[in-house]
């Protein structure tokens, strides 16, 4: 049972292995370049296991000690996990002892596979998801360790390596931007950049994150009438939403988001999972991972 689940899970994690080894290496390398001991990046990879937050934590560790701000920042940067969790409520039911680990290790990429993949009937779902989570987590930890170790041996200067963080976020941003035709997604992205840039200019580089989040939230609540595409009738498909999903389900991530969320609500009633909405999303998300 376990072997079969492993054989089903492993090939799906291969692209993530490549990505995590590279990004993990960059992260380990960056930590080495900033003068941190080996256990810092490896411990952070082990306990935090949220790539972008680990990069952000490098800056936190180099600033003045402020645990409250660090905690709030972790909540805000990882706020997207809340919505992963909401989507996985149905899928993780009855997972027993595996459930805490599946939640603990649910990074973007693991979520993409576990939420989107059609698992064959003869494969145990719990073990499949557990292997996906474990493999992805250990790719990241191994990449981090490798990056730190190799970093010290490199014959060239690593000055400027920290730009990999900007590159990572920018590429995810571009991927989201190019992956959707939805005007709402573009407006949301512009609001994110605009609100943050405005607050950075206004409050300076040490105090702008909380105002940025507050401003963003306020703008989104003000514009809800224009940006909210969720159907008002519970369970019913809104007109504009429905057409986007049908026309461009594979590339419109926002629409797929709704589809998946809805499929999980349906799942609650029918137990049998609905993969139609989720499957096209997987490849999309995986390339983004």
């Amino acid at each position, binding site marked *: 049972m376990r072997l079969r689940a492993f054989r089903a899970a492993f090939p799906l994690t291969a692209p993530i292995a490549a990505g995590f080894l590279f990004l993990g290496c960059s992260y380990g390398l960056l930590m080495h370049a900033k003068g941190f001991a080996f256990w810092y990046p490896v411990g952070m990879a082990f306990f935090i296991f949220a790539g972008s937050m680990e990069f*952000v934590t490098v800056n936190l560790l180099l600033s003045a000690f402020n645990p409250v701000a660090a905690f709030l920042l972790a909540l805000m940067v990882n706020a997207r996990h809340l919505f992963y969790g909401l989507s996985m*409520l149905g899928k993780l039911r009855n997972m027993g002892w595996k459930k805490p680990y599946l*939640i603990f290790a649910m990074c973007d990429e693991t979520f993409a596979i576990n939420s989107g993949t059609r698992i064959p009937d003869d494969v145990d779902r719990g073990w499949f998801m557990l292997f996906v989570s474990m493999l992805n987590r250990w790719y990241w930890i191994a990449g981090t360790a490798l990056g730190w170790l190799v970093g010290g041996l490199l014959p060239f200067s690593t000055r400027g390596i920290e*730009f990999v963080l900007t590159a990572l976020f920018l590429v995810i*941003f571009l991927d989201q931007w190019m992956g959707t035709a939805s005007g709402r997604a573009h407006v949301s992205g512009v609001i994110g950049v605009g609100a943050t840039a405005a607050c950075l200019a206004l409050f300076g580089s040490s105090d702008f*994150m909380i105002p940025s989040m507050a401003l963003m939230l306020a703008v989104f609540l003000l514009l809800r009438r224009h*940006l909210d595409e969720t159907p008002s009738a519970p369970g019913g498909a809104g007109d504009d939403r429905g057409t986007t999903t049908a026309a461009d389900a594979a590339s419109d991530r926002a629409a797929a988001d709704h589809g998946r969320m809805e499929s999980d*609500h349906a799942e609650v009633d029918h137990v049998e999972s609905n993969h139609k909405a989720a499957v096209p999303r997987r490849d999309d998300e995986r390339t983004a991972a």
Partner: protein
Amino acid sequence: MTMTTWQAVATIAVVALGTMLTRFLPFLVFPESKRPPRVVEYLGSVLPYAMTGLLVVYSLKDVSLTSGSHGIPEAIAMLAIVLLHWWKRSMLLSIAGGTVLYMVLVQVVFV
């Protein structure tokens, strides 16, 4: 590093705690399958894009436009990433290409 080791450990611990809270909270708040309020679903659909935008700006917060190299290496590398990603759409190529270009710029060109 300006922190003591214990301050660093505490920082890492609270970051891990905050991260875990975001992962576990939905399962604690909705133990059965209560549908989340509509405003939460709405924010969940728009925030991912905005958060990535925030992270882009956050990662550039210490770039000074008025001193040093005036943010020119950053601008060049970011432009290269946009073009590279527009052309090939390969996550790893765009990240690696942009980072290597930036490293060359700050080590060789804008010294």
